[in-house]
């Protein structure tokens, strides 16, 4: 009997039993009995009985062909005319062939189904394996990416700190120049004053030697000692002013250099601006005029050294944007509870395409060694930390205005707390 469950190899030769699968054998044999008008039996190619009565002796026998060879025989108990017998065999062969078609079709169907299923399972296993591989890979990738990001962040932080330090360095160079100037004239003033003292010592010696008041007056006038005395006073006054200026610069520098400052203090923006301008003056001296319009008045709670950095950075960019005959305007004001700081220049301006990138770390249009591309990044970060905003409006070859808004609420809150 044909095994539908496991199916078979569609190429194998089917035996008679298999070929009769699904066929009502008793109906088949009774039909044959009636057609041939005798008792009919069917045996397979080994002689084993398959259907009908094959127990007693048979008279006639005709082969039933499978594909090529006989798969069995049709046999009768009594003689039957040969053409009727072969017609019956033919009929049966037609039935067997029909069934064979069906069996072969179901065989190959089952086989391809099984192959497809196995293929699917194989692919599924392969897929799961590769999925696991990718999962592992992506995990290790994630770790590697995190490490890389950390390294890059460290490097950035270092460069970022360097930029802050460098701005202090650049400032220090300017400061040296600023201090040198008063130092120069103080030294010369003091030297001149010291030389005046000689004349007075000589005059004092005349007094000690008991010179007459007439002689003394004569010498006083000859040596123009009154003039010397007036001049001496001027020299001292000028020197004191110079010293005051140096003191101021030192104070400004001291405040500005505290770049790692984290605690806030009460400071007013106008003072910060003035101090920065004072120490940085040498940077624009030849090519630009500085106009200060400062009216922020109230001190706010802030990190003053950091805000100094902002002013210094914006001022530096403005100076860099100017070729000659520039005007740099720094304005401060309080508008709607916000301290506004504006640095405006009439320099070359920023093209739109460049403007989109200026706050990005390391973005610079300046020559190597000139710009770090961190200036505005640092400014942005400091302003953000103060809860403020920074905006740039620019027109190519007309100039640039950078506006920093710092909320005063910040300051109020802090001052209430303290």
């Amino acid at each position, binding site marked *: 009997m044909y095994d539908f469950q496991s199916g078979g190899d569609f*190429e194998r030769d089917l035996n008679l039993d298999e070929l009769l699968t699904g066929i009502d054998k008793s109906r088949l044999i009774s039909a044959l009995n009636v057609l041939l008008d005798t008792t009919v039996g069917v045996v397979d190619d080994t002689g084993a009985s398959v259907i009908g009565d094959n127990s007693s002796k048979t008279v006639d026998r005709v082969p039933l062909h*499978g*594909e*090529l060879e006989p798969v069995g025989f049709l046999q009768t108990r009594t003689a039957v005319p040969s053409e009727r017998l072969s017609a019956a065999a033919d009929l049966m062969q037609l039935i067997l062939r029909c069934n*064979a*078609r069906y069996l072969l079709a179901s065989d*190959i169907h089952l*086989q*391809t189904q099984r192959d497809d299923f196995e293929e699917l399972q194989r692919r599924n296993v392969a897929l799961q394996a590769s999925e696991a591989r990718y999962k592992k890979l992506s995990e290790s990738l994630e770790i590697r990416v995190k490490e890389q990001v950390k390294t890059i962040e460290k490097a950035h932080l270092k460069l970022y700190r360097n930029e802050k330090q460098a701005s202090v360095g650049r400032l220090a160079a300017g400061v040296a120049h600023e201090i040198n100037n008063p130092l120069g004239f103080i030294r010369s003033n003091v030297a001149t004053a010291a030389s005046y003292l000689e004349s007075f010592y000589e005059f004092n010696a005349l007094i000690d030697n008991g010179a007459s008041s007439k002689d003394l007056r004569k010498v006083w006038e000859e040596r123009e000692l009154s003039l010397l005395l007036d001049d001496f006073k001027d020299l001292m006054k000028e020197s004191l002013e110079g010293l005051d200026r140096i003191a101021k610069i030192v104070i400004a520098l001291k405040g500005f250099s505290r770049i790692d400052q984290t605690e806030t203090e009460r400071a007013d923006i106008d003072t910060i601006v003035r101090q920065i301008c004072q120490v940085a003056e040498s940077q624009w001296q030849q090519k630009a005029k500085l106009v200060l319009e400062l009216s922020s008045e109230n001190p706010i709670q802030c990190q003053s050294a950091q805000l100094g950095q902002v002013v210094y950075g914006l001022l530096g960019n403005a100076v860099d944007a100017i070729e000659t005959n520039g005007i740099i305007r720094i304005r401060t004001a309080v508008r709607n509870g916000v301290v506004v700081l504006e640095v405006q220049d009439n320099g070359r301006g920023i093209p739109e395409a460049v403007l989109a990138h200026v706050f990005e770390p390391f973005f610079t249009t300046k020559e190597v060694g000139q710009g770090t591309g961190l200036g505005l990044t640092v400014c942005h970060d400091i302003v953000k930390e103060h809860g403020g905003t920074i905006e740039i409006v620019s027109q190519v070859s007309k100039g640039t205005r950078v506006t920093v808004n710092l909320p005063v609420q910040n300051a109020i809150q802090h001052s209430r707390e303290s």
Partner: protein
Amino acid sequence: MAQYDESSQKLTIKLVYYGPALSGKTTNLMRLHDILTPDMKGELMIMETADDRTLFFDLLPLGFRAPSGLLIKFKVYTVPGQVIHDSTRKAVLSRADGVVFVADSQRTQSVNNGESFENLAANAARVGLDFQQLPLVVQFNKRDLPAILSEQEIMARWEKAPWPVLFSSALTGEGIIETFKALLAAVYRTCDRLYRLQSDHGLDCDSFIAQTLGGSLSSARG
């Protein structure tokens, strides 16, 4: 490989007509069934759908006895050419002893021919057949149609290939026997090597072919 059944003295050889859809594989088999007259010829079993597309396969059984008494039995199959029936094509191709690749000569069918040939190579590999060793004959069919590649064009393309290339018109039967003979010659070589047809069974190549074709054709062999 051919199945050799020692106890019943039978060697079953499997031949497969492969190729793109509608190239004429089934028609080839029908012509073989009409023309061949070997000692044993089974009925042609055609399993196709109403629109004449082969669904599973077609099968033509043939056979004759070698002088030794060995029954040489051929099972000649066609595969379904339609792309979607690839699993069936693969199953029918497995264990093939020889293949006729039926190409369609029409110019418009060049791409289909190429894809089907690649599919044959790929499926041969999947079912573990050594494509380089496999007896293979290439048949360009439908020579009777107008818009076809010329023989020169075809030969220029196939001249470097190791397989015999034949031209046919299955509709009229032209070239069908020549193709089959070329395949039988190639198949004989491998079967003789494996089953010593000449020495053990007294069967040389010429009579192997002649007996497969049958009496009426054997005289026409050249």
